[in-house]
């Protein structure tokens, strides 16, 4: 892929580009699905192509092709330059990139068990063993719908830019996704989505013990259906489980602190942000709230060593002790803010421009056990997991509807409750966190952003947290 990338960079420079980067990328992935025990098609995706991004006269152009013939690469490079030049007349803020160190590196996430060596049969056997664990006899609940999906993908990238960076990387990703519908006569139905995902080889699947996870989830559905009562409404103390903490960190901290949103670049699609430049250094939450985004967490679904602008990755502290701290930057927004990039530029395929993305976003753990979080609550709710959620496009007004949830009575977790609704503003939520747990968990997720859409692999996570005096009920 190096020859093709080099040709693209040389051709674009020859055509007048001031800056060029070329990324050749190959992805090979498989998806296996069992739907109520019946195999859906085994699907394979094979992608190989090159994306070329240029800056000319302060204007940014991107062109891609899945032909690696020299003539086509030259044409694509020339196209990127030509369309960028043409757009220059309608540009009020010229694109420029923050200066960054150039790197030459080859990196790879090594697999203990190479996913390419695992047969389709073995992969299906994993799904069949989950299916077997979900029988009524095993889980004591009727599951009329069971969708089990196993995905693997191996990505090879070769990145080259006109400033001297030359980086190749190999990344395997594996994920297990399931949707279960539990049903109980006279009690209706409940649906649960769970996503385990890592940047690893097949050894991740071996360690998950997915049949036990799925059976555990099914039993919880049964309990919620049989015993669930209406949740209390009004002002209460609320304990949120790791899964809910994780989605909150992603939606109402990670997204609004993407610098491209703050600058308005996603205004017509994913939206802008309630966070403004002048809010950096201002309080948004209680002193218990510290939220980090870290692409370098070992085995994490959002793992990478260099971003897709060739910048070396490291952790970013988005909120520190309740104060807005780092934004997520690529080189373009970093130049605009007068800082360095923190390597948040990601692209999911050869034909997508790199844009600012989260990697693995989580709340920093505190020192409470779950028992300690609930022991002082006289009357409250513990919302361990969620199903429905959404947030406005400025990332201010959000909603999470609990799935596995319980009353808290006199300092103890009590009766299951159905569909408790937390609908709250971002400062209202972060400002009410009064204790943070110490047990960390992460969930796999696919984050949507960009136009065309780019579904980026991420982790969301954190410990259980306690929210003091919050309105529950919607």
């Amino acid at each position, binding site marked *: 892929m190096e020859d093709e990338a080099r040709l693209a960079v040389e051709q674009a420079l020859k055509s007048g580009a001031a800056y060029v980067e070329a990324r050749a990328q190959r992805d090979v992935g498989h*998806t296996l699905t069992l739907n109520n025990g019946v195999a859906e*098609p085994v699907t394979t995706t094979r*992608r190989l192509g090159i994306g070329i991004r240029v800056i000319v006269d302060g*204007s940014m152009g991107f*062109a891609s092709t899945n032909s690696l013939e020299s003539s086509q690469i030259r044409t694509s490079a020339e196209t990127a330059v030509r369309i960028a030049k043409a757009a220059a007349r309608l540009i009020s803020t010229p694109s420029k990139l923050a200066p960054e160190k150039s790197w030459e590196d080859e990196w790879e996430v090594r697999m203990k068990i190479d996913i390419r060596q695992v*047969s389709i049969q073995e992969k299906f056997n994993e799904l069949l063993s989950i299916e077997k664990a979900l029988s009524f006899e095993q889980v004591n609940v009727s599951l009329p719908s069971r969708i089990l999906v196993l995905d693997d993908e191996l990505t090879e990238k070769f990145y080259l830019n006109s400033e001297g960076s030359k980086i190749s990387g190999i990344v395997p990703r594996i994920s297990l996704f399931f949707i279960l519908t539990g049903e109980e006569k006279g009690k209706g139905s409940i649906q649960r989505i769970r996503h385990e995902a890592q940047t690893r080889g097949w050894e991740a699947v071996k360690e998950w013990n997915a049949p036990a996870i799925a059976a555990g989830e099914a039993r919880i559905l049964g309990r919620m259906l049989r015993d669930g009562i209406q949740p209390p409404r009004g002002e209460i103390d609320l304990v949120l489980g790791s899964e809910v903490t994780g989605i909150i960190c992603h939606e109402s901290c990670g997204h609004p602190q993407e610098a491209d949103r703050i600058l308005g670049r996603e205004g*017509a699609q994913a939206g802008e942000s309630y966070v403004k430049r002048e809010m950096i250094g201002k309080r948004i939450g209680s002193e218990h709230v510290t939220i980090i985004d870290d692409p370098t967490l070992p085995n994490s679904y959002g793992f990478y060593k260099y971003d897709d602008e060739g910048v070396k990755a490291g952790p970013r502290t988005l909120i520190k002790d309740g104060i807005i701290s780092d934004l997520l930057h690529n080189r373009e927004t970093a130049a605009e803010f007068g800082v360095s990039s923190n390597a948040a530029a990601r692209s999911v395929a050869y034909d997508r421009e790199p844009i600012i993305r989260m990697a693995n976003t989580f709340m920093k753990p505190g020192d409470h056990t779950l028992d300690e979080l609930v022991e002082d609550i006289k009357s409250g709710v513990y919302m361990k997991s969620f199903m429905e959620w*959404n947030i406005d496009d400025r990332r201010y007004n959000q909603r999470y509807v609990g799935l596995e949830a319980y009353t808290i009575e006199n300092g103890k977790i009590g009766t299951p409750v159905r569909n408790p609704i937390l609908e709250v503003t971002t400062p209202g939520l972060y400002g009410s966190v009064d204790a943070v747990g110490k047990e960390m968990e992460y969930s796999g997720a696919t984050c949507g952003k960009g136009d065309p859409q780019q579904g980026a692999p991420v982790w969301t996570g954190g410990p259980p947290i306690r929210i003091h005096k919050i309105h529950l009920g919607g």
Partner: protein
Amino acid sequence: MNRILSACKKLGVVSVAVGFTRSRDQMVRFSNNSITVVNSWQNEVPTVYLASNGKRAACRIEEQEGVEFESIARELVDSMKVIPRGDVDFDLPKGPFIYQEIEGIYDKRLTEIDTGLIDAAEVAINSARKEGAERVSGVVISGSWEHFVLTSAGAEGSNRGTEIEITVRAFANEDATGQGISIATNLDRFHPAEAGVSAGSIARKARGAKAGISGKYNVVFGPAIFADLVDRVADSASAYTVDLGLSFFQNTLGKRVASEKFSLNDNGRLPNGPGSISLDDEGFPTGEIHLIAKGILENYLHTSYTAAKHNAQPTGSAQFEGGLAGMVPAPRNLIVEPGEHQFGDLLDGAGSGLYITNNWYTRFQNYQTGDFSTICRDGVFEIRDGKLGNPVKGLRVSDNMIRILQSIEALSKERQWIRWWEVPTPTLTPYVLVRDVGITTASK
């Protein structure tokens, strides 16, 4: 394509559908009245879908260098050998078929438009600013495509088309926003200035919005938000979604699912239709499918596989998607039948309530029951005494999809085509009045 087909047949595969798409697309993105990036894509992508003895496999081959189709075919066939047997045997639709040309879906000018998209962006920005927008963001996309399908059942055909669309979002101040859209298959029907005017005008009127209040409201849904809801309705009318247990239309075929005033069709061969194509990815001719007729769920969308499972006929809705299912039944152009009313009549009918122009982030608590919420986006206005009143903000529709469908009271004569980032299927829809819609707000 012939190479792939014969390689698969040699390996003993009973049913094979090979697709090939050649496409060229361009996109101009802008924000703050300024272009941020111009994209250009050029792709050639074959797809393969195989079925034998109830087992299925699929592959999307988005690469050209050194691809050995025979070895890909062998890998797919080997994978089919080891997967559990499927639940139904089926055949691909038996051809040959005659595919009739669809009027108005190809405009040669759009294959040569090149940097003309930049002019369209400028026109939209200027027209939105004239209406009162301070800042304008958006995207202009154009593309041309050729699509070929060849199957082992004797179907063989091709089609070509062009498209152009613009989404404009105007900001009159930070939270006073409006959206305008124009989508077309030919240049004469493309109106970037009107999209800009619409976005700018909604944004201007949304200035000074006060926080809304939770409750039940009579709501007039604008075309953009109603198109999003209709897209979810069509998803639920896909037999694939029904089989997954992710549809609120399970066991409701032939039953009342909506108000008698509501009818919804999917028409894959609509003249000038942005999603029109003469054949589906199994080689079956596309056509018009009545999904909901006067409130009764009449049909699910089918591929040959789901049709065999449901003892029904294919509907020309097969689309190769890869991923979970390979080939799925999916809509092409969703058409909501118009009503008899003017927009003002709907406001009159609401009496007091809300007019919601747009939304985003629709999520379900339970796909089977249809319990969901979605966030109001852009201008939301009170309706008082049948007239548009003050702008409001911070609202969420929190309701049930079937209840909303059944509470449709009136539809406008006027309709608009909607497709944008949040609504993937081209949808032609009127303004719609719905009674007693659940609206919620954040508490703190």
